[in-house]
């Protein structure tokens, strides 16, 4: 499933006009982070991916999974889903765009290409966390 998700996200965020896309970036670690997220998010992402892979028959009238489409048809497929009259399909693309955007927009190479400063760390620490340097107090105490 992970490979299918990667495929869908790469199709939505391809390299374009000198700006690196998810096809050129290593986003595995951040994607794994998302996959470790709450079950509802994971399920939604998987469902969106499965539909993305299966629907070329409906969007571009090609009875193939999306990973066998030519780049041009894949682009058309992704855009037809994004602009579909069917609200649920648009929502599916919104989910893929949102997750992809979190990975793509945080990437230092992308930010450099767009002239934006790189992001700082995401320590994920909190008071009482054993992995956090305790500032003077024993771990867990405030």
């Amino acid at each position: 499933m992970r490979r299918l998700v990667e495929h869908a996200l790469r199709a939505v965020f391809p390299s374009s006009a000198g700006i690196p896309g998810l096809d050129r970036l290593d986003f595995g670690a951040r994607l794994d982070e998302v996959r470790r997220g709450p079950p509802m998010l994971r399920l939604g992402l998987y469902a969106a991916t499965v539909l993305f892979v299966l629907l070329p028959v409906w969007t571009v009238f090609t009875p193939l999974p999306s990973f066998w489409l030519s780049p041009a048809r894949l682009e058309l497929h992704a855009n037809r889903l994004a602009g579909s009259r069917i609200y649920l399909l648009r929502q599916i693309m919104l989910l893929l765009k949102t997750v992809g955007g979190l990975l793509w927009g945080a990437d230092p190479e992308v930010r450099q290409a767009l002239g934006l400063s790189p992001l700082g760390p995401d320590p994920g620490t909190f008071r009482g966390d054993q992995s956090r340097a305790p500032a003077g107090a024993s771990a867990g105490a405030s």
Partner: protein
Amino acid sequence: MASAARDWRQHGHIAFQAGDAVALEADYVVVGSGPGGSGAALILARAGFDVCVVEAGPWRDPADYPSSMLGAMRDMMPDWGATVAVGDSIMPIVQAAVVGGGTVINSAIMVRTPADVLVDWRERHGLGDLFDERAMGDQHDAVDRELAVQRTPEGTAFGANNAMLIEALQRRQLDGNAILRNVQGCQGSGACLQGCRSGAKQSTNLAWLPEVIDRGGTVISCARVDRVIIERGAALGIRGRFRHPRSRALGATVDVRARRGVVIAASAVQTPLILQRSGLRLPALGRHWRVHPGAAIVGVYDQPVDMMRGATQGAASVHFRGGIGLRDGKTYAETGENGIKIESLSLPLELLAGRAAGAGHALIERLADARHQAVWISAVRAEAEGTCRLGLFGQPNVRYKPTQRDLRALRAGSHLLAALHFESGARVVRPGVFGLPAEITPDQLHLLADGPLDNRSWTWVLSHLFGGAVMGKDPQRSVVAPDLHVRGVRRLHVACAAALPTSLGVNPQHTILAVARILAERLANGA
């Protein structure tokens, strides 16, 4: 008290515990530590009571805050921000789950409760003079002093996105101002949503909860309250359970006995659910749930705007709070229609992607000019009411559908913002509305004026939430009686946005803080 907890409590803070049950006793238990919970806890602690705040999220300090939006969703929001309201469309609900609640991730905008709201609460909701202008004004004054509420000075920290909106409003002689914010020394990092890593924002985890601890109180973090223990019509305490913020592993159970009372302040989404899980069956519980749904309009300029620099939200207008109309391509203030509030908003690149139209190369093209984009939003004082109930698996089941009048207000507001962008020199505007072109030019503005009145065509976001356990005189319509007790349960109170009987048409945190402090003062005075 169990042994592990005894050690932790010496420091005034108990974080995740895997082992023994943690059992404490306090005068008051406060559930949730957003503006409502922190405001109530502070006043009770100052009055000399032993207060225990129980918060589902972890306690993060500025050095712990994330920089990316993925980090913000993971570390600061319940279920990574996956809560939604469902009607005929799906609308994301943005909230915090961290010590300090919404004050940690919000834009620090402080707006006093409008006088008409207080009159409405008195006259239509029967709250007497509990929250009259003087009582609320006194609290607003005190909060302004304590949280260093001030205007972000214009200059580099203010940011072009904010300055451009003010200029655009003034050009039309619409009132528009630099926003009052509870921020001291804003550096204009445009990152309020991720928490302020420089510590400039006076969120309650920094400004107030340390004082609660200094006064002998306790904060229990990473502990989700399951229910209030109610016996013979009185609230005796709470029961909850630790959950590890990273692994999500369940930990020890948490029992806190309340000698004097329990104050629920877990937000307009979670407070009704806690009351439902506690066995309350009041007709108004989970009802009268309201929001200010908002949508963004993006202007694209020839010159860089660099909205990622500057105060996240620095400019606003309440000119159309009383109502907005749109006729023959012109917007005008109109009473009798639903109102809007206009604000600037610095959207991080990561979130712009979800907002831009299309996919593939077309999408990347619309993100490539991120530095040239300015984002302005309109938030509707919507009339629609929804419900918030326990879902099948214990999750919030929020049903909400804006009305046609709400949609008309949003459309009028969006049209106005697009016009303001063009008058400010935008090359194109990206309305983000399904059924309209991805980009419109000035001669296509009429398309937005005639835009679809269908929820599913708009990308709404819900971050100002109200109701679900509202105060009022009418037992059929309210959960909290005018004596500020939850109906039918002694010693049980609500001190968050859930208790507000109406929406406000302005940003809520100042009102929530003031209401919570008034409630706490009454409790301290023996009410």
